[in-house]
């Protein structure tokens, strides 16, 4: 904003200094944003300890331990025989290696520099480091779309947004921790290639996409969003050669690189998730050819060419499409995988794949969870969308498309709110930055008018306004939507008309919106208050809602803080008091933790890749003792683990999950019928429960000797007394119950070695008859 009377040389020197100062300020701000992103995720480390949370991170941690101990070749070829007994699991071919390799590399690098951090520490802190990287990537992406101010704003918002914090706290060592960074960075490189048309960035884009494929199954979002955007550009007439350079190398290189990852393999060319990219690839080539020929020919000849090509091309197109449709329709799921299909058709999973439907993360979100997870951004997004349209460029149309698809997917599955978070932050950053620039410009204009109260004031204002970008009346409604929630809306409308008359006077070339002084100051103050509310909410969410490690529970009571460390107690008991080769059966939720912490072989775990195996365990838990013993014995199981929350009021225990076991078991073994366990359609375990429920293994293992705790057997989670209070176990024996009765371990009683001599003959007759009747009922023979 140089004054007209200053000499040009000094003005350019002053401009350079200002630019340098701006650059340094920007760098310092980015550093601070990174520090905020890192520190806000450390609440769980401060409140509890540096421990890995939840279930899935334990598997990733175990894989990283293996990688750090045995090296990368062993990791690629690792066949794990300690899970899914007796099937085992090919880890090298079924895990997304990005997270593990990243953490392993960081660990190896630090150790080679003689900084001896343990693998666990590196794993715990990987997520906060990569969220700092993600906010810097957001800065770069938004800078490509709208400029530095919007970039800094978006980065600051992303550093704190609760939805991203929920999946990347210190200790949440899961795929999304690095995948979101890879997602934003890939989008940044795509937009950069689109803006510059440089093949170098296209190569980097493909490599970043490779990193994303390595990290998360959600990479299909990228390989479907980018073709959608290319199609949008073509259809809206924004085809350019830069679009070709941005898209075509990405498809080829990206498909090849995706096929390199063992998990994806040939799915990269054979599943429907990737077909959109090939289709748009062909369409792009056709369009490119058309534009090229249009450049060569005269218009009349071009029309002739078009008619010829269209008649021939349509016939060929029909044939190809018919073949493709026939191929795809021949597979029952139309070539899509179960999880992707459940995204497109939300009712698919509940009808066909109960395991996918039972995961709580796969349920649709409720309305309050939007305000919990993205808070203030929820009503800054529409302002951002409008701002993207003024002016519409390739980059800003990409943002809008990304947001719209992300909103749809987040509405289907609550876990995908995470994909919405960067889009929300970017658009809110754009909106806020535009509002701030309008308001500060108004203040500057009003102040300059106030201080030089001379006829040259209008002349001063024109160089000021010419250094700003072009705006028009649409700004009215946009800056109205942003401070929508502020009071005194009516006053503002009246004053806006006054402002209009003010701006018409000084310039003829550009009409800039300038608001009255008090209004602008008020607006800026209120926006800062809004930002303050957002920050307070984010910190509260990070500290209270999303920092629970779920392996350690705490509760406050009159005599202080109680810590429930039962899970680790049980796993430690298992690892110290059982043989290395003993098999432990439990519901699949606890599989990863058991293999990682107790180091024992499990039957089923959280990978849930084999539905029949899980149904077997579910059937065993739902059967009476003897049938369950038979099933577990056929699987070589030694110990059974159940989680019981009735004594302390822990609601996510196995009794509450029991109906899912029945459903999944009943889906494969028809003799388990869900209505058998319900009384009048209601699930209960008190005196009104059905006999099948009261005799099943899960009930018995959970409530064995429970009546000894308070004499009445009052279950604190269900809120009533249990039905069957005094019973003995015939085929299992209790070996360990943790301090708060949350985890209970039972051992299978071995079969009787010999029978008493007198009863031998009648016993043999009895056993043969039971065997005969057993054969009818028991599906295992």
């Amino acid at each position, binding site marked *: 904003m140089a004054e007209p009377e200053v000499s040009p040389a000094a003005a350019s020197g002053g401009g350079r200094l200002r630019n340098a100062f701006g650059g340094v300020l920007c760098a310092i701000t980015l550093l601070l944003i990174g520090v905020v992103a890192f520190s806000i995720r450390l609440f769980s480390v401060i409140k509890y300890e540096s421990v890995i949370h939840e279930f899935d991170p334990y598997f990733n941690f175990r894989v990283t331990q293996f990688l750090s101990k045995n090296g990368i070749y062993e990791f690629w070829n690792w066949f794990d025989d300690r899970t899914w007994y007796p099937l085992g699991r090919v880890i090298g071919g079924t895990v997304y290696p990005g997270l593990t390799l990243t953490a392993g590399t960081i660990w190896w690098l630090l150790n080679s520099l003689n900084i001896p951090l343990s693998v666990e520490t590196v794993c715990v802190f990987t997520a906060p480091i990569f969220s700092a990287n993600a906010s810097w990537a957001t800065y770069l992406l938004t800078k490509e779309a709208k400029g530095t101010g919007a970039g800094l704003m978006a980065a600051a918002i992303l550093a704190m947004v609760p939805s991203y914090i929920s999946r990347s706290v210190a200790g949440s060592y899961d795929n999304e921790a690095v995948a979101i960074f890879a997602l934003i960075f890939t989008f940044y490189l795509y937009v950069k290639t689109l803006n510059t048309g440089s*093949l*170098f960035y296209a190569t980097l884009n493909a490599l970043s996409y490779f990193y994303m494929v390595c990290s998360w199954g959600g990479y299909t979002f990228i390989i479907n969003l980018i073709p959608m955007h290319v199609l949008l550009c073509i259809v809206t007439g924004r085809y350019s050669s830069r679009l070709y*350079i941005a898209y075509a190398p990405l498809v080829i290189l990206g498909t*090849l690189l995706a096929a*390199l990852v063992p998990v994806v393999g040939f799915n990269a060319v054979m599943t429907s998730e990737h077909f959109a990219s090939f289709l748009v690839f062909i369409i792009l080539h056709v369009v490119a050819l058309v534009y090229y020929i249009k450049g*060569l020919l005269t218009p009349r000849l071009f029309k002739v060419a078009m008619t010829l090509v269209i008649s021939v091309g349509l016939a060929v197109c029909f044939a190809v499409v018919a073949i493709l449709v026939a191929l795809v329709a021949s597979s029952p799921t139309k070539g899509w995988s179960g999880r992707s299909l459940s995204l497109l058709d939300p009712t698919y999973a509940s009808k066909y794949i109960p395991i996918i439907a039972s995961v709580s993360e796969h349920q649709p979100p409720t309305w309050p969870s939007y305000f919990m997870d993205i808070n203030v951004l929820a009503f800054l997004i529409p302002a951002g969308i409008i701002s993207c349209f003024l002016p519409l460029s390739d980059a800003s149309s990409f943002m809008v498309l990304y947001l719209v698809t992300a909103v749809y997917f987040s509405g289907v599955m609550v876990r995908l709110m995470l994909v919405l978070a960067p889009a929300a932050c970017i658009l809110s950053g754009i909106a806020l930055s535009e509002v701030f620039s309008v308001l500060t410009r108004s203040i500057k204009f009003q102040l300059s008018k106030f201080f030089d109260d001379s006829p040259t004031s209008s002349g001063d204002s024109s160089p000021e306004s010419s250094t700003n970008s072009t705006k028009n009346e649409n700004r009215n409604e946009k800056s109205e939507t942003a401070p929508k929630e502020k009071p005194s809306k009516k006053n503002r409308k009246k004053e806006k008309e006054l402002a209009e008359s003010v701006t018409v006077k000084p310039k003829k070339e550009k009409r800039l919106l300038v608001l009255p002084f008090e209004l602008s100051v008020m607006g800026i103050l209120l926006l800062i208050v809004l930002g303050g509310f957002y920050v307070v909410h984010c910190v509260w969410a990070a500290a209270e809602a999303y920092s629970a490690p779920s392996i350690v529970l705490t509760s406050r009571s009159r005599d202080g803080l109680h810590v429930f460390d039962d899970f680790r107690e049980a796993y430690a008991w298992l690892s110290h008091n059982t043989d290395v080769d003993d098999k432990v059966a439990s519901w699949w939720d606890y599989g990863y933790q058991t293999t990682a912490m107790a180091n024992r072989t499990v039957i089923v775990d959280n990978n849930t890749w084999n539905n029949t195996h899980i149904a077997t365990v579910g059937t065993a838990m739902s059967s009476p003792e003897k049938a369950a013993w038979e099933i577990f014995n056929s699987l070589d199981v030694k110990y059974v683990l159940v989680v019981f929350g009735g004594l302390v009021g822990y609601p996510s225990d196995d009794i509450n999950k029991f109906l899912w076991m029945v459903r999944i078991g009943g889906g494969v073994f028809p003799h388990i019928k869900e209505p058998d366990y319900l009384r009048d359609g209601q699930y209960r375990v008190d005196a009104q429960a059905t006999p099948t429920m009261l005799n099943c293994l899960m009930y018995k293992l959970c409530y064995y000797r429970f009546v000894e705790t308070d004499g009445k057997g009052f279950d604190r989670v269900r809120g009533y007394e249990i039905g069957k209070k005094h019973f003995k176990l015939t085929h299992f024996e209790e070996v360990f119950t943790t301090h708060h009765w949350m985890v209970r371990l039972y051992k299978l009683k071995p079969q009787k070695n010999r029978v008493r001599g007198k009863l031998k003959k009648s016993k043999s007759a009895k056993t043969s008859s039971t065997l005969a009747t057993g054969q009818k009922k028991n599906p295992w023979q």
Partner: protein
Amino acid sequence: MPRATSDAKLLIQSLGKAYAATPTNLKIIDLYVVFVVATALIQVAYMGLVGSFPFNSFLSGVLSCIGTAVLAVCLRIQVNKDNKEFKDLPPERAFADFVLCNLVLHLVIMNFLG
């Protein structure tokens, strides 16, 4: 119908004339693209004859051909003097990008060839 055929002949003639006017370096790139696409078609025909095992070799062969074709087209776009958007991009830089991208592509191909 004769109108259509004469139109078609005129069309092809004018296409040929307009194409002959393009500079030689662009024609070399076009020839390279045609050669590469022909190689890809030969590979697909061979796969049709012999079967698609091992599939990764077939994929890497075909995709390397299509990949180099695409990269050559990108190079042609960037080097073409009629293209306003790439006016201030020196052709050496375009060629260097082309070489780099080809290096990455062929490194991946070598890995995937099996």
